[in-house]
Protein backbone atom coordinates (compact mmCIF):
# COMPACT_ATOMS: atom_id res chain seq x y z
CA UNK A 1 0.00 0.00 0.00
CA UNK A 2 2.78 2.31 0.96
CA UNK A 3 4.57 1.43 -2.24
CA UNK A 4 1.49 2.32 -4.25
CA UNK A 5 1.34 5.70 -2.57
CA UNK A 6 4.96 6.39 -3.41
CA UNK A 7 4.43 5.21 -6.96
CA UNK A 8 1.58 7.69 -7.41
CA UNK A 9 3.87 10.38 -6.07
CA UNK A 10 6.44 9.24 -8.62
CA UNK A 11 3.94 9.56 -11.45
CA UNK A 12 3.27 13.04 -10.21
CA UNK A 13 6.94 13.87 -10.70
CA UNK A 14 7.27 12.03 -13.99
CA UNK A 15 4.25 13.64 -15.61
CA UNK A 16 5.45 17.19 -15.05
CA UNK A 17 5.69 18.77 -18.51
CA UNK A 18 9.47 19.21 -18.47
CA UNK A 19 10.02 15.65 -17.34
CA UNK A 20 7.68 14.29 -20.00
CA UNK A 21 9.46 16.34 -22.62
CA UNK A 22 12.83 15.15 -21.39
CA UNK A 23 11.66 11.52 -21.45
CA UNK A 24 10.41 11.96 -25.01
CA UNK A 25 13.68 13.53 -26.09
CA UNK A 26 15.73 10.89 -24.28
CA UNK A 27 13.74 8.05 -25.82
CA UNK A 28 14.24 9.49 -29.30
CA UNK A 29 17.96 10.14 -28.88
CA UNK A 30 18.40 6.79 -27.17
CA UNK A 31 16.82 4.89 -30.02
CA UNK A 32 19.08 6.64 -32.54
CA UNK A 33 22.22 6.08 -30.47
CA UNK A 34 21.20 2.47 -29.95
CA UNK A 35 20.69 1.74 -33.61
CA UNK A 36 23.94 3.28 -34.77
CA UNK A 37 26.40 0.41 -34.92
CA UNK A 38 29.16 0.82 -32.39
CA UNK A 39 27.35 3.28 -30.17
CA UNK A 40 25.69 1.65 -27.19
CA UNK A 41 23.86 2.81 -24.09
CA UNK A 42 27.08 3.81 -22.31
CA UNK A 43 27.99 6.16 -25.15
CA UNK A 44 24.51 7.65 -25.18
CA UNK A 45 24.44 8.23 -21.45
CA UNK A 46 28.02 9.50 -21.47
CA UNK A 47 27.34 12.04 -24.20
CA UNK A 48 24.19 13.41 -22.60
CA UNK A 49 25.39 13.42 -18.99
CA UNK A 50 27.62 16.52 -19.20
CA UNK A 51 24.94 18.32 -21.18
CA UNK A 52 22.31 17.52 -18.58
CA UNK A 53 24.65 18.81 -15.91
CA UNK A 54 25.64 21.93 -17.81
CA UNK A 55 21.99 22.71 -18.50
CA UNK A 56 21.35 22.70 -14.76
CA UNK A 57 18.57 20.13 -14.92
CA UNK A 58 17.35 19.08 -11.48
CA UNK A 59 18.58 15.62 -10.44
CA UNK A 60 15.32 13.77 -11.03
CA UNK A 61 15.00 15.24 -14.52
CA UNK A 62 18.59 14.37 -15.36
CA UNK A 63 18.07 10.83 -14.16
CA UNK A 64 14.85 10.49 -16.16
CA UNK A 65 16.74 11.66 -19.23
CA UNK A 66 19.50 9.12 -18.72
CA UNK A 67 17.07 6.29 -18.01
CA UNK A 68 15.07 7.13 -21.13
CA UNK A 69 18.27 7.06 -23.18
CA UNK A 70 19.24 3.73 -21.61
CA UNK A 71 15.90 2.14 -22.42
CA UNK A 72 15.84 3.74 -25.85
CA UNK A 73 19.21 2.22 -26.70
CA UNK A 74 17.93 -1.24 -25.85
CA UNK A 75 15.03 -0.59 -28.22
CA UNK A 76 17.23 0.87 -30.94
CA UNK A 77 19.85 -1.87 -31.02
CA UNK A 78 17.42 -4.27 -32.61
CA UNK A 79 16.67 -2.10 -35.66
CA UNK A 80 20.15 -2.32 -37.14
CA UNK A 81 20.39 -5.93 -35.99
CA UNK A 82 17.34 -6.88 -38.02
CA UNK A 83 17.82 -4.66 -41.05
CA UNK A 84 21.60 -4.70 -41.38
CA UNK A 85 22.78 -7.82 -39.59
CA UNK A 86 24.96 -5.47 -37.54
CA UNK A 87 24.10 -5.28 -33.84
CA UNK A 88 23.49 -1.66 -32.85
CA UNK A 89 24.82 -2.43 -29.39
CA UNK A 90 26.43 -5.44 -27.78
CA UNK A 91 23.19 -6.78 -26.33
CA UNK A 92 21.62 -7.05 -29.79
CA UNK A 93 24.13 -9.59 -31.09
CA UNK A 94 21.68 -12.40 -30.49
CA UNK A 95 18.91 -10.56 -32.30
CA UNK A 96 20.88 -10.62 -35.53
CA UNK A 97 20.86 -14.43 -35.59
CA UNK A 98 17.17 -14.65 -36.40
CA UNK A 99 16.25 -11.07 -37.11
CA UNK A 100 18.31 -10.71 -40.27
CA UNK A 101 17.11 -13.96 -41.85
CA UNK A 102 13.55 -12.82 -41.15
CA UNK A 103 14.24 -9.51 -42.88
CA UNK A 104 15.69 -11.34 -45.88
CA UNK A 105 12.50 -13.36 -46.09
CA UNK A 106 10.53 -10.13 -46.36
CA UNK A 107 9.29 -10.29 -42.81
CA UNK A 108 11.26 -7.28 -41.56
CA UNK A 109 8.12 -5.43 -40.54
CA UNK A 110 6.90 -8.37 -38.50
CA UNK A 111 10.27 -8.87 -36.83
CA UNK A 112 10.58 -5.18 -36.01
CA UNK A 113 7.12 -4.77 -34.57
CA UNK A 114 7.24 -8.03 -32.66
CA UNK A 115 10.65 -7.20 -31.20
CA UNK A 116 9.33 -3.79 -30.17
CA UNK A 117 6.53 -5.49 -28.28
CA UNK A 118 9.04 -7.94 -26.77
CA UNK A 119 11.17 -5.05 -25.62
CA UNK A 120 8.08 -3.45 -24.16
CA UNK A 121 7.03 -6.65 -22.36
CA UNK A 122 10.53 -7.10 -20.98
CA UNK A 123 10.78 -3.57 -19.64
CA UNK A 124 7.29 -3.62 -18.20
CA UNK A 125 7.73 -6.87 -16.33
CA UNK A 126 11.10 -5.75 -15.04
CA UNK A 127 9.81 -2.34 -13.98
CA UNK A 128 7.05 -4.05 -12.01
CA UNK A 129 9.82 -6.15 -10.47
CA UNK A 130 11.66 -2.98 -9.53
CA UNK A 131 8.53 -1.60 -7.87
CA UNK A 132 8.01 -4.81 -5.91
CA UNK A 133 11.54 -5.67 -4.87
CA UNK A 134 13.49 -2.44 -4.68
CA UNK A 135 11.80 -1.12 -1.51
CA UNK A 136 12.23 -4.49 0.20
CA UNK A 137 15.89 -4.66 -0.69
CA UNK A 138 16.36 -1.07 0.41
CA UNK A 139 14.95 -2.00 3.82
CA UNK A 140 17.38 -4.86 4.13
CA UNK A 141 20.24 -2.77 2.91
CA UNK A 142 19.87 -0.36 5.79
CA UNK A 143 21.41 -3.09 7.95
CA UNK A 144 24.58 -2.84 5.87
CA UNK A 145 27.52 -1.23 7.63
CA UNK A 146 30.78 -0.14 6.02
CA UNK A 147 32.29 -3.62 6.30
CA UNK A 148 29.28 -5.18 4.56
CA UNK A 149 29.46 -2.54 1.84
CA UNK A 150 33.11 -3.18 1.26
CA UNK A 151 32.51 -6.90 0.82
CA UNK A 152 29.47 -6.22 -1.36
CA UNK A 153 31.62 -4.18 -3.73
CA UNK A 154 34.16 -6.96 -3.86
CA UNK A 155 31.26 -9.24 -4.74
CA UNK A 156 30.18 -6.90 -7.56
CA UNK A 157 33.66 -7.01 -9.04
CA UNK A 158 33.96 -10.77 -8.56
CA UNK A 159 30.60 -11.19 -10.33
CA UNK A 160 32.02 -9.37 -13.29
CA UNK A 161 34.97 -11.74 -13.44
CA UNK A 162 32.85 -14.82 -12.90
CA UNK A 163 30.03 -14.04 -15.29
CA UNK A 164 31.86 -12.53 -18.22
CA UNK A 165 33.52 -15.88 -18.42
CA UNK A 166 36.20 -16.43 -20.98
CA UNK A 167 38.70 -13.87 -19.70
CA UNK A 168 38.39 -13.56 -15.92
CA UNK A 169 41.93 -12.28 -15.35
CA UNK A 170 41.61 -9.53 -17.93
CA UNK A 171 38.25 -8.51 -16.49
CA UNK A 172 39.56 -8.35 -12.95
CA UNK A 173 42.64 -6.45 -14.06
CA UNK A 174 40.37 -3.97 -15.86
CA UNK A 175 38.33 -3.46 -12.71
CA UNK A 176 41.56 -2.90 -10.75
CA UNK A 177 42.69 -0.32 -13.29
CA UNK A 178 39.41 1.48 -12.71
CA UNK A 179 39.84 1.29 -8.95
CA UNK A 180 43.37 2.62 -9.26
CA UNK A 181 42.29 5.54 -11.46
CA UNK A 182 39.88 6.50 -8.72
CA UNK A 183 42.68 6.90 -6.17
CA UNK A 184 44.19 9.83 -8.09
CA UNK A 185 43.71 13.11 -6.30
CA UNK A 186 43.61 14.32 -2.76
CA UNK A 187 42.82 11.68 -0.15
CA UNK A 188 39.59 12.72 1.51
CA UNK A 189 40.49 11.52 4.99
CA UNK A 190 44.02 12.81 5.42
CA UNK A 191 44.47 15.44 2.71
CA UNK A 192 47.50 13.70 1.21
CA UNK A 193 47.92 14.18 -2.55
CA UNK A 194 48.11 10.87 -4.36
CA UNK A 195 49.41 10.29 -7.91
CA UNK A 196 48.83 13.93 -8.85
CA UNK A 197 52.42 14.49 -10.05
CA UNK A 198 52.16 18.06 -8.73
CA UNK A 199 49.48 18.94 -11.25
CA UNK A 200 46.80 21.28 -9.99
CA UNK A 201 44.30 19.93 -12.49
CA UNK A 202 44.60 16.45 -11.04
CA UNK A 203 44.38 17.48 -7.41
CA UNK A 204 40.67 16.80 -7.02
CA UNK A 205 40.92 13.58 -8.96
CA UNK A 206 40.08 12.67 -12.53
CA UNK A 207 36.61 13.91 -13.30
CA UNK A 208 34.10 11.19 -13.91
CA UNK A 209 32.80 12.73 -17.13
CA UNK A 210 36.31 12.83 -18.58
CA UNK A 211 36.89 9.17 -17.84
CA UNK A 212 33.59 8.06 -19.33
CA UNK A 213 33.82 10.17 -22.47
CA UNK A 214 37.49 9.36 -22.98
CA UNK A 215 37.04 5.66 -22.57
CA UNK A 216 33.84 5.31 -24.51
CA UNK A 217 33.59 8.10 -27.09
CA UNK A 218 37.20 8.68 -28.03
CA UNK A 219 38.13 5.01 -28.12
CA UNK A 220 34.98 4.34 -30.14
CA UNK A 221 36.03 6.93 -32.71
CA UNK A 222 39.40 5.20 -33.08
CA UNK A 223 37.69 1.84 -33.36
CA UNK A 224 35.34 3.13 -36.03
CA UNK A 225 38.35 4.09 -38.16
CA UNK A 226 38.78 0.42 -38.95
CA UNK A 227 35.48 -0.03 -40.67
CA UNK A 228 34.92 3.10 -42.67
CA UNK A 229 31.76 2.51 -44.58
CA UNK A 230 29.79 5.23 -46.26
CA UNK A 231 26.39 4.42 -44.89
CA UNK A 232 25.01 0.96 -45.29
CA UNK A 233 22.27 -0.45 -47.41
CA UNK A 234 19.55 -1.69 -45.14
CA UNK A 235 17.09 -4.35 -46.15
CA UNK A 236 13.92 -2.57 -47.21
CA UNK A 237 11.20 -3.21 -44.69
CA UNK A 238 8.53 -4.62 -46.92
CA UNK A 239 5.44 -6.75 -46.50
CA UNK A 240 3.24 -6.60 -43.46
CA UNK A 241 4.19 -3.90 -41.01
CA UNK A 242 2.54 -5.48 -37.99
CA UNK A 243 2.57 -9.00 -36.62
CA UNK A 244 -0.77 -10.80 -36.33
CA UNK A 245 -2.46 -12.32 -33.32
CA UNK A 246 -1.23 -15.84 -34.09
CA UNK A 247 2.38 -14.75 -34.17
CA UNK A 248 1.89 -12.92 -30.91
CA UNK A 249 0.47 -16.00 -29.20
CA UNK A 250 3.28 -18.08 -30.64
CA UNK A 251 5.89 -15.94 -28.90
CA UNK A 252 3.91 -14.96 -25.81
CA UNK A 253 5.44 -17.44 -23.39
CA UNK A 254 8.90 -16.88 -24.80
CA UNK A 255 8.58 -13.20 -23.97
CA UNK A 256 7.35 -13.86 -20.44
CA UNK A 257 10.03 -16.44 -19.67
CA UNK A 258 12.83 -14.36 -21.14
CA UNK A 259 11.67 -11.21 -19.38
CA UNK A 260 11.71 -12.88 -15.97
CA UNK A 261 15.10 -14.46 -16.64
CA UNK A 262 16.48 -11.18 -17.98
CA UNK A 263 15.25 -9.33 -14.92
CA UNK A 264 16.96 -11.76 -12.54
CA UNK A 265 20.22 -11.62 -14.47
CA UNK A 266 20.01 -7.84 -14.56
CA UNK A 267 19.65 -7.60 -10.80
CA UNK A 268 22.93 -9.45 -10.25
CA UNK A 269 25.67 -6.88 -10.11
CA UNK A 270 28.08 -7.13 -13.00
CA UNK A 271 26.04 -9.35 -15.30
CA UNK A 272 24.43 -7.15 -17.91
CA UNK A 273 22.13 -7.23 -20.88
CA UNK A 274 24.55 -9.05 -23.16
CA UNK A 275 24.67 -12.11 -20.94
CA UNK A 276 20.90 -12.01 -20.42
CA UNK A 277 20.11 -12.02 -24.12
CA UNK A 278 22.62 -14.77 -24.88
CA UNK A 279 21.36 -17.00 -22.07
CA UNK A 280 17.68 -16.66 -22.92
CA UNK A 281 18.30 -17.23 -26.63
CA UNK A 282 20.13 -20.45 -25.86
CA UNK A 283 17.40 -21.57 -23.47
CA UNK A 284 14.63 -20.93 -25.98
CA UNK A 285 16.56 -22.75 -28.65
CA UNK A 286 16.91 -25.76 -26.39
CA UNK A 287 13.25 -25.62 -25.33
CA UNK A 288 12.06 -25.47 -28.94
CA UNK A 289 14.16 -28.48 -29.86
CA UNK A 290 13.80 -29.68 -33.44
CA UNK A 291 10.55 -27.84 -34.03
CA UNK A 292 12.32 -24.47 -34.01
CA UNK A 293 13.90 -22.80 -36.99
CA UNK A 294 16.43 -20.96 -34.84
CA UNK A 295 19.11 -19.38 -36.96
CA UNK A 296 17.00 -19.24 -40.12
CA UNK A 297 14.38 -16.84 -38.88
CA UNK A 298 12.41 -18.02 -35.89
CA UNK A 299 10.23 -15.32 -34.35
CA UNK A 300 11.04 -16.64 -30.90
CA UNK A 301 14.72 -16.01 -31.63
CA UNK A 302 13.92 -12.32 -31.93
CA UNK A 303 11.48 -12.15 -29.03
CA UNK A 304 13.72 -13.87 -26.47
CA UNK A 305 16.87 -11.69 -26.60
CA UNK A 306 14.90 -8.47 -27.03
CA UNK A 307 12.69 -9.01 -24.00
CA UNK A 308 15.67 -10.22 -21.98
CA UNK A 309 17.96 -7.29 -22.70
CA UNK A 310 15.31 -4.72 -21.87
CA UNK A 311 14.33 -6.59 -18.73
CA UNK A 312 17.91 -6.77 -17.54
CA UNK A 313 18.43 -3.07 -18.29
CA UNK A 314 15.57 -2.24 -15.92
CA UNK A 315 16.61 -4.92 -13.45
CA UNK A 316 20.11 -3.46 -13.18
CA UNK A 317 18.53 -0.33 -11.72
CA UNK A 318 17.73 -2.28 -8.54
CA UNK A 319 21.27 -2.70 -7.21
CA UNK A 320 22.00 0.84 -8.33
CA UNK A 321 19.09 2.41 -6.47
CA UNK A 322 19.06 0.24 -3.36
CA UNK A 323 22.71 -0.51 -2.74
CA UNK A 324 24.52 2.12 -4.75
CA UNK A 325 26.38 -0.67 -6.51
CA UNK A 326 26.00 -0.64 -10.30
CA UNK A 327 24.61 -3.69 -12.09
CA UNK A 328 26.05 -2.74 -15.47
CA UNK A 329 28.40 -0.30 -17.13
CA UNK A 330 25.55 2.04 -17.94
CA UNK A 331 24.20 2.13 -14.40
CA UNK A 332 27.76 2.79 -13.26
CA UNK A 333 27.65 5.94 -15.35
CA UNK A 334 24.29 6.84 -13.85
CA UNK A 335 25.70 6.47 -10.34
CA UNK A 336 28.45 8.83 -11.40
CA UNK A 337 25.75 11.21 -12.59
CA UNK A 338 24.05 11.10 -9.21
CA UNK A 339 27.29 11.80 -7.40
CA UNK A 340 27.75 14.88 -9.60
CA UNK A 341 24.56 16.10 -7.96
CA UNK A 342 25.90 15.19 -4.52
CA UNK A 343 23.36 12.40 -4.19
CA UNK A 344 24.79 9.14 -2.94
CA UNK A 345 22.74 6.22 -4.19
CA UNK A 346 22.05 3.65 -1.53
CA UNK A 347 19.33 2.44 0.80
CA UNK A 348 18.81 5.88 2.29
CA UNK A 349 17.94 7.27 -1.12
CA UNK A 350 14.45 5.82 -0.77
CA UNK A 351 13.87 7.82 2.39
CA UNK A 352 15.76 10.98 1.62
CA UNK A 353 15.00 11.46 -2.06
CA UNK A 354 11.73 9.69 -2.77
CA UNK A 355 11.06 12.14 -5.60
CA UNK A 356 14.18 11.06 -7.42
CA UNK A 357 13.67 7.32 -6.96
CA UNK A 358 9.97 7.07 -7.59
CA UNK A 359 10.05 9.69 -10.30
CA UNK A 360 12.62 7.57 -12.06
CA UNK A 361 10.59 4.37 -11.67
CA UNK A 362 7.40 6.03 -12.86
CA UNK A 363 9.26 7.51 -15.79
CA UNK A 364 10.34 4.01 -16.78
CA UNK A 365 6.68 3.11 -17.27
CA UNK A 366 6.02 6.28 -19.22
CA UNK A 367 9.23 6.04 -21.23
CA UNK A 368 8.34 2.51 -22.19
CA UNK A 369 4.97 3.49 -23.56
CA UNK A 370 6.55 6.40 -25.43
CA UNK A 371 9.12 4.06 -26.92
CA UNK A 372 6.58 1.49 -28.02
CA UNK A 373 4.37 4.12 -29.61
CA UNK A 374 7.38 5.79 -31.20
CA UNK A 375 9.02 2.64 -32.44
CA UNK A 376 6.30 1.00 -34.45
CA UNK A 377 5.33 3.84 -36.78
CA UNK A 378 8.73 5.57 -36.89
CA UNK A 379 10.79 2.53 -37.83
CA UNK A 380 11.14 3.94 -41.35
CA UNK A 381 12.60 7.18 -40.04
CA UNK A 382 14.97 5.41 -37.68
CA UNK A 383 16.21 3.02 -40.33
CA UNK A 384 17.00 5.98 -42.56
CA UNK A 385 19.39 7.11 -39.81
CA UNK A 386 21.50 4.11 -40.66
CA UNK A 387 22.48 5.70 -43.95
CA UNK A 388 24.18 8.68 -42.26
CA UNK A 389 27.78 8.28 -43.40
CA UNK A 390 30.63 8.07 -40.93
CA UNK A 391 32.32 11.22 -42.21
CA UNK A 392 29.43 13.20 -40.77
CA UNK A 393 28.71 11.02 -37.76
CA UNK A 394 32.23 10.75 -36.32
CA UNK A 395 33.02 14.48 -36.35
CA UNK A 396 29.66 15.13 -34.72
CA UNK A 397 30.43 12.64 -31.94
CA UNK A 398 33.87 14.22 -31.52
CA UNK A 399 32.51 17.72 -31.18
CA UNK A 400 29.82 16.70 -28.69
CA UNK A 401 32.44 14.84 -26.61
CA UNK A 402 34.74 17.84 -26.59
CA UNK A 403 31.96 20.19 -25.56
CA UNK A 404 30.83 17.77 -22.87
CA UNK A 405 34.27 17.62 -21.30
CA UNK A 406 34.94 21.32 -21.76
CA UNK A 407 31.71 22.16 -19.96
CA UNK A 408 33.01 20.63 -16.71
CA UNK A 409 36.03 22.84 -15.97
CA UNK A 410 36.73 24.79 -19.16
CA UNK A 411 40.38 23.79 -19.35
CA UNK A 412 42.50 22.47 -22.20
CA UNK A 413 44.11 20.05 -19.76
CA UNK A 414 40.85 18.13 -19.43
CA UNK A 415 40.54 17.81 -23.21
CA UNK A 416 44.05 16.41 -23.52
CA UNK A 417 43.46 14.07 -20.57
CA UNK A 418 40.29 12.83 -22.25
CA UNK A 419 42.18 12.00 -25.44
CA UNK A 420 44.96 10.28 -23.48
CA UNK A 421 42.39 8.15 -21.66
CA UNK A 422 40.69 7.46 -24.97
CA UNK A 423 43.90 6.17 -26.51
CA UNK A 424 44.51 4.05 -23.44
CA UNK A 425 40.96 2.72 -23.68
CA UNK A 426 41.49 1.95 -27.35
CA UNK A 427 44.60 -0.09 -26.53
CA UNK A 428 42.71 -1.94 -23.80
CA UNK A 429 39.90 -2.72 -26.21
CA UNK A 430 42.25 -3.94 -28.89
CA UNK A 431 43.76 -6.27 -26.31
CA UNK A 432 40.33 -7.53 -25.36
CA UNK A 433 40.06 -5.98 -21.90
CA UNK A 434 36.40 -5.16 -21.10
CA UNK A 435 36.04 -1.41 -20.65
CA UNK A 436 32.79 -1.63 -18.72
CA UNK A 437 34.78 -3.28 -15.93
CA UNK A 438 37.12 -0.28 -15.84
CA UNK A 439 34.20 2.11 -15.47
CA UNK A 440 32.61 -0.07 -12.79
CA UNK A 441 35.87 -0.06 -10.88
CA UNK A 442 36.23 3.68 -11.26
CA UNK A 443 32.76 4.32 -9.85
CA UNK A 444 33.21 1.88 -7.00
CA UNK A 445 36.75 3.02 -6.22
CA UNK A 446 36.15 5.87 -3.87
CA UNK A 447 33.23 4.19 -2.11
CA UNK A 448 35.24 1.06 -1.65
CA UNK A 449 38.19 2.78 -0.05
CA UNK A 450 35.96 4.94 2.15
CA UNK A 451 34.02 1.95 3.40
CA UNK A 452 37.13 -0.10 4.03
CA UNK A 453 38.70 2.68 6.03
CA UNK A 454 35.53 3.45 7.90
CA UNK A 455 35.12 -0.21 8.81
CA UNK A 456 38.68 -0.43 10.07
CA UNK A 457 38.28 2.78 12.02
CA UNK A 458 35.29 1.25 13.78
CA UNK A 459 37.27 -1.84 14.70
CA UNK A 460 40.41 0.18 15.46
CA UNK A 461 42.39 -1.56 12.77
CA UNK A 462 41.23 -5.11 13.41
CA UNK A 463 40.74 -6.84 10.06
CA UNK A 464 38.31 -9.28 11.69
CA UNK A 465 35.42 -6.87 11.14
CA UNK A 466 35.53 -7.68 7.43
CA UNK A 467 34.26 -11.19 8.11
CA UNK A 468 32.65 -10.64 11.49
CA UNK A 469 28.94 -10.55 10.62
CA UNK A 470 26.71 -13.18 8.97
CA UNK A 471 26.05 -10.89 6.00
CA UNK A 472 29.74 -10.52 5.26
CA UNK A 473 30.25 -14.26 5.58
CA UNK A 474 27.49 -14.98 3.05
CA UNK A 475 28.92 -12.37 0.70
CA UNK A 476 32.42 -13.82 1.00
CA UNK A 477 31.02 -17.25 0.18
CA UNK A 478 29.36 -15.79 -2.92
CA UNK A 479 32.62 -14.08 -3.88
CA UNK A 480 34.43 -17.40 -3.60
CA UNK A 481 31.78 -19.06 -5.75
CA UNK A 482 32.03 -16.35 -8.42
CA UNK A 483 35.80 -16.54 -8.50
CA UNK A 484 35.61 -20.32 -8.76
CA UNK A 485 33.15 -20.27 -11.69
CA UNK A 486 35.69 -19.70 -14.48
CA UNK A 487 37.82 -22.46 -12.98
CA UNK A 488 34.88 -24.87 -12.88
CA UNK A 489 33.98 -24.05 -16.47
CA UNK A 490 37.57 -24.58 -17.53
CA UNK A 491 37.72 -28.00 -15.81
CA UNK A 492 34.45 -29.03 -17.43
CA UNK A 493 35.65 -28.03 -20.85
CA UNK A 494 38.84 -29.96 -20.36
CA UNK A 495 36.91 -33.04 -19.33
CA UNK A 496 34.73 -32.73 -22.42
CA UNK A 497 37.71 -32.36 -24.69
CA UNK A 498 39.32 -35.35 -23.05
CA UNK A 499 36.16 -37.44 -23.39
CA UNK A 500 35.96 -36.52 -27.05
CA UNK A 501 39.58 -37.40 -27.56
CA UNK A 502 39.00 -40.77 -25.84
CA UNK A 503 35.92 -41.42 -27.96
CA UNK A 504 37.73 -40.67 -31.19
CA UNK A 505 40.71 -42.76 -30.09
CA UNK A 506 38.45 -45.73 -29.31
Amino acid sequence: METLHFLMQGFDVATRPTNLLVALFGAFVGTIVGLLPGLGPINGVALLLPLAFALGLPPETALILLAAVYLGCEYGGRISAILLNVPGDAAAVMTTLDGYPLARQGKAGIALSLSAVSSFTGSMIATCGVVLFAPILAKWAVAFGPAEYFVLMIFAIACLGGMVGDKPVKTLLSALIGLALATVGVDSTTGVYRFTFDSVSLSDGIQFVIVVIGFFSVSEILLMLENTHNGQKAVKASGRVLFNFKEYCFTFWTMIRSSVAGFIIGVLPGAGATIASAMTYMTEKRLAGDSGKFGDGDLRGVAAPESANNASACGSLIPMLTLGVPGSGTTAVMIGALTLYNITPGPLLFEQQPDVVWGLIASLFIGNIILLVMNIPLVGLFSRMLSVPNWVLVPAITVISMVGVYAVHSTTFDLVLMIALGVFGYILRKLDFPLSAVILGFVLGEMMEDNLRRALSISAGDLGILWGSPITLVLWALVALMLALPGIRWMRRRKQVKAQADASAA
Partner: protein
Amino acid sequence: MYVRLFAAIWLLLCAFLAVIAWGFQAPFAYDPVGPRAYPLLLLVLMAAGAAWLIFKPGPHTEALSRQALQRAGLCILTLLAYALLFEPLGFVLSTALATFVLGLLFTGRVLPCLISGALMGVLLYALFDYALDVPLPLGVFEALVES
Protein backbone atom coordinates in the same frame (compact mmCIF):
# COMPACT_ATOMS: atom_id res chain seq x y z
CA MET B 1 52.20 -11.25 -27.90
CA TYR B 2 50.71 -7.78 -27.54
CA VAL B 3 48.99 -8.79 -24.33
CA ARG B 4 52.35 -9.93 -22.96
CA LEU B 5 53.97 -6.66 -23.94
CA PHE B 6 51.17 -4.69 -22.34
CA ALA B 7 51.30 -6.79 -19.17
CA ALA B 8 55.06 -6.31 -18.92
CA ILE B 9 54.75 -2.54 -19.30
CA TRP B 10 51.94 -2.54 -16.77
CA LEU B 11 54.04 -4.51 -14.32
CA LEU B 12 56.85 -1.96 -14.60
CA LEU B 13 54.34 0.86 -14.19
CA CYS B 14 52.99 -0.81 -11.05
CA ALA B 15 56.47 -1.00 -9.60
CA PHE B 16 57.10 2.65 -10.43
CA LEU B 17 53.79 3.74 -8.91
CA ALA B 18 54.41 1.60 -5.85
CA VAL B 19 57.61 3.54 -5.19
CA ILE B 20 55.64 6.77 -5.36
CA ALA B 21 52.82 5.36 -3.25
CA TRP B 22 55.28 4.34 -0.57
CA GLY B 23 55.81 8.03 0.11
CA PHE B 24 52.16 8.77 0.90
CA GLN B 25 52.19 9.47 4.58
CA ALA B 26 49.87 11.59 6.59
CA PRO B 27 51.42 13.96 9.11
CA PHE B 28 48.90 12.75 11.68
CA ALA B 29 47.26 9.35 11.93
CA TYR B 30 43.57 10.06 11.34
CA ASP B 31 42.55 6.45 10.86
CA PRO B 32 44.27 3.11 11.32
CA VAL B 33 44.67 2.53 7.56
CA GLY B 34 46.18 5.76 6.33
CA PRO B 35 46.45 6.95 2.74
CA ARG B 36 49.14 4.45 1.71
CA ALA B 37 47.71 0.98 2.27
CA TYR B 38 44.84 0.97 -0.18
CA PRO B 39 46.72 2.15 -3.29
CA LEU B 40 49.52 -0.27 -2.44
CA LEU B 41 47.02 -3.12 -2.13
CA LEU B 42 45.61 -2.29 -5.55
CA LEU B 43 49.07 -2.08 -7.08
CA VAL B 44 50.03 -5.46 -5.68
CA LEU B 45 46.84 -7.04 -7.05
CA MET B 46 47.35 -5.38 -10.43
CA ALA B 47 50.92 -6.56 -10.55
CA ALA B 48 49.74 -10.08 -9.79
CA GLY B 49 47.20 -9.88 -12.62
CA ALA B 50 49.79 -8.53 -15.03
CA ALA B 51 52.24 -11.26 -14.06
CA TRP B 52 49.58 -13.87 -14.74
CA LEU B 53 48.98 -12.39 -18.19
CA ILE B 54 52.69 -12.52 -18.98
CA PHE B 55 52.63 -16.26 -18.45
CA LYS B 56 49.15 -16.90 -19.82
CA PRO B 57 48.27 -14.19 -22.32
CA GLY B 58 45.18 -16.04 -23.50
CA PRO B 59 44.01 -16.31 -27.09
CA HIS B 60 46.06 -14.62 -29.76
CA THR B 61 45.07 -11.03 -30.49
CA GLU B 62 45.23 -9.84 -34.07
CA ALA B 63 47.98 -7.45 -35.04
CA LEU B 64 47.12 -4.08 -36.51
CA SER B 65 48.22 -3.53 -40.07
CA ARG B 66 50.69 -0.76 -40.75
CA GLN B 67 48.04 1.22 -42.58
CA ALA B 68 45.53 0.95 -39.77
CA LEU B 69 48.17 2.10 -37.28
CA GLN B 70 48.98 5.09 -39.45
CA ARG B 71 45.35 6.07 -39.67
CA ALA B 72 44.87 5.65 -35.93
CA GLY B 73 47.95 7.80 -35.35
CA LEU B 74 46.64 10.50 -37.68
CA CYS B 75 43.28 10.42 -35.95
CA ILE B 76 44.89 10.80 -32.51
CA LEU B 77 47.01 13.69 -33.77
CA THR B 78 43.95 15.41 -35.19
CA LEU B 79 42.11 15.01 -31.91
CA LEU B 80 45.10 16.36 -29.98
CA ALA B 81 45.41 19.33 -32.29
CA TYR B 82 41.70 19.97 -31.88
CA ALA B 83 42.03 19.86 -28.10
CA LEU B 84 45.02 22.21 -28.06
CA LEU B 85 43.52 24.68 -30.53
CA PHE B 86 40.09 24.61 -28.89
CA GLU B 87 40.75 27.67 -26.73
CA PRO B 88 43.20 29.72 -28.82
CA LEU B 89 41.31 29.41 -32.10
CA GLY B 90 37.88 29.32 -30.54
CA PHE B 91 35.15 26.78 -30.94
CA VAL B 92 33.88 27.72 -34.39
CA LEU B 93 37.21 27.66 -36.23
CA SER B 94 38.76 24.68 -34.43
CA THR B 95 35.58 22.64 -34.86
CA ALA B 96 35.33 23.44 -38.54
CA LEU B 97 38.95 22.42 -39.04
CA ALA B 98 38.71 19.23 -36.99
CA THR B 99 35.45 18.22 -38.63
CA PHE B 100 36.99 18.72 -42.04
CA VAL B 101 40.11 16.67 -41.30
CA LEU B 102 38.22 13.90 -39.50
CA GLY B 103 35.73 13.76 -42.34
CA LEU B 104 38.59 13.22 -44.79
CA LEU B 105 40.06 10.53 -42.53
CA PHE B 106 36.74 8.73 -42.59
CA THR B 107 36.84 8.66 -46.40
CA GLY B 108 34.60 11.64 -47.04
CA ARG B 109 35.11 13.68 -50.21
CA VAL B 110 36.73 17.12 -49.99
CA LEU B 111 33.83 19.40 -50.85
CA PRO B 112 31.16 17.73 -48.69
CA CYS B 113 33.60 17.66 -45.79
CA LEU B 114 34.31 21.38 -46.19
CA ILE B 115 30.62 22.11 -46.14
CA SER B 116 29.90 19.86 -43.17
CA GLY B 117 32.86 21.37 -41.31
CA ALA B 118 31.66 24.92 -41.79
CA LEU B 119 28.08 24.02 -40.96
CA MET B 120 28.98 22.09 -37.84
CA GLY B 121 31.24 24.83 -36.51
CA VAL B 122 28.57 27.49 -36.80
CA LEU B 123 25.45 25.48 -36.06
CA LEU B 124 26.80 23.60 -33.05
CA TYR B 125 28.13 26.84 -31.62
CA ALA B 126 24.69 28.35 -31.92
CA LEU B 127 23.10 25.23 -30.44
CA PHE B 128 25.39 24.92 -27.44
CA ASP B 129 26.11 28.54 -26.65
CA TYR B 130 22.70 30.06 -27.23
CA ALA B 131 20.16 27.27 -26.95
CA LEU B 132 21.78 25.04 -24.33
CA ASP B 133 23.70 27.71 -22.43
CA VAL B 134 27.05 25.92 -22.46
CA PRO B 135 29.77 28.59 -22.56
CA LEU B 136 32.31 27.96 -25.32
CA PRO B 137 35.50 29.84 -26.19
CA LEU B 138 35.24 32.41 -28.96
CA GLY B 139 38.99 32.53 -29.58
CA VAL B 140 39.93 34.65 -32.56
CA PHE B 141 36.39 35.92 -32.92
CA GLU B 142 36.56 37.55 -29.53
CA ALA B 143 37.99 40.76 -30.94
CA LEU B 144 35.23 40.88 -33.53
CA VAL B 145 32.51 40.55 -30.94
CA GLU B 146 33.99 43.18 -28.66
CA SER B 147 34.58 45.79 -31.31
